[in-house]
């Protein structure tokens, strides 16, 4: 019982250490979702709207990559960014940027795969009308992405959920350095193993609260938009 009370106390009093950790977690995961969307939405739309050899294989690979193990991605990014790795000269290992890179790799396939499915379904519906209106390839992509925007929010949320919840990749490439690369999930893993349960529980509560809050905001935006667009 004392454990729960002190965790709540930290949350309610806005403990500065806790606040820094929460802030970094959000910055890293939201940046990763942003970059992953910039990569994943065009890739998904491209695969949805073009026919090329190996397309089926690309779809299966993309779907499979939704389940990439975070620790494996973390290891790959670690090797790439380590001093002797191909990108070692960037000096990014054990920085928040490295964590963003790792999470972007984890999230992009999710957004691309869900975008592909969403856009393809809408394309089946719109194909005749857009052909009759003589809409060119670029116009088609923009029309479909725009008209599917509320469904694509779900893809972004799935990506954010993945990024916010994972610990395996960022603990490897970030190093869980106090005050620099420590996030909610890495801190929970560390504090739990150290036995500092109040901080771990406090962080856990904040993490769940934030995930619910962001999903609620996105849901509200989606509902409002659908009411307008039908």
């Amino acid at each position, binding site marked *: 019982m004392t454990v729960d009370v002190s965790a709540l106390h930290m949350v309610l009093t806005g403990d500065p250490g806790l606040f820094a950790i929460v802030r970094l977690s959000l910055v890293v995961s939201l940046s990763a979702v942003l970059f992953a969307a910039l990569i994943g939405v065009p890739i998904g739309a491209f695969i949805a709207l073009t026919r090329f050899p190996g397309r089926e294989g690309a779809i299966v690979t993309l779907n499979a990559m939704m389940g990439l193990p975070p620790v494996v991605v973390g290891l790959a990014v670690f090797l790439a960014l380590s001093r002797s790795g191909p990108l070692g000269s960037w000096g990014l290992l054990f920085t928040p940027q490295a964590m963003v890179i790792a999470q972007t790799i984890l999230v992009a396939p999710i957004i691309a795969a869900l975008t592909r499915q969403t856009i393809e379904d809408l394309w089946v*519906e*719109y194909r*005749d*009308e857009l*052909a*009759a*209106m*003589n*809409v060119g390839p670029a*116009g088609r992509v923009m*029309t479909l992405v725009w*008209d*599917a925007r509320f469904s694509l929010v779900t893809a972004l949320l799935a990506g954010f959920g993945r990024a916010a919840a994972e610990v395996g990749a960022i603990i490897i490439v970030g190093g869980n350095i106090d005050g620099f690369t420590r996030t909610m999930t890495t801190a929970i893993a560390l504090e739990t193993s150290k036995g500092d349960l109040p901080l771990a529980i406090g962080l856990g509560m904040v993490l769940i609260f934030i995930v619910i809050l962001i999903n609620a905001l996105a849901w509200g935006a989606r509902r409002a938009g659908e*009411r*307008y*667009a*039908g």
Partner: protein
Amino acid sequence: MRALVSDLPLMLVEVGILAGEVTVLDDISLTLSPGAPTVLIGPNGSGKTTLLRAAMGLIPVTRGRVTWGGRDASPPDRRAILFQRPVMLRRSTGDNVRYALAAAGVPRTARYDRAAELLVLVGLEGFDQRPARRLSGGEQQRLALARALARDPEVLFLDEPTASLDPAATKAIEDIVRDISARGVKVVMATHDLGEAKRLAGEIALLHRGHLIEHGPAAEFFAAPRSEEARKFIAGELLV
């Protein structure tokens, strides 16, 4: 922006279309010229929709050829089609029309005024901000018609535009079609409704099992049908 050349006369020359192994259209020769509406009649599956799509240029023909104003290829700048089940874009009613105007190359500044005119024309004034997908079936057909007219078409193809509508909604569509036709747009409409064909047609083309059975002025067709199929169709017998 807009081609000044005409798509008319639109000619189908010995057109055959296969879907897999199935012959959907067989040896169809038909010329569509400016003037009163041409109504394609025939039972379901007779090839009306396929003929419209081929004439619109949406599907390739297997045999024969289609020419628009004597040309073998013509972008659908001055043609528009109203599908049997039109798809509403996930936008407001007004945005659906403005999208079609944009696709037709109408400059941005002119789109709002033109969209408002088109909505009035189809009886949807005041619907601008309504989500298109929440409209009733009849309203959706009228919006789709406004969208088709946004292309300022020379030829307008209509695929059973009133098939699932009640009499009031049907009358609304037919009145608009008559109005459009009077303005000089060539209307080519498919229907399996004999009454509708009588009300609108300037000329009739009867299709049956992918064949063009008869083609001629409507008055002549109804007064003195030349084929057994036409006699059956006019008599209201089931033509299968």
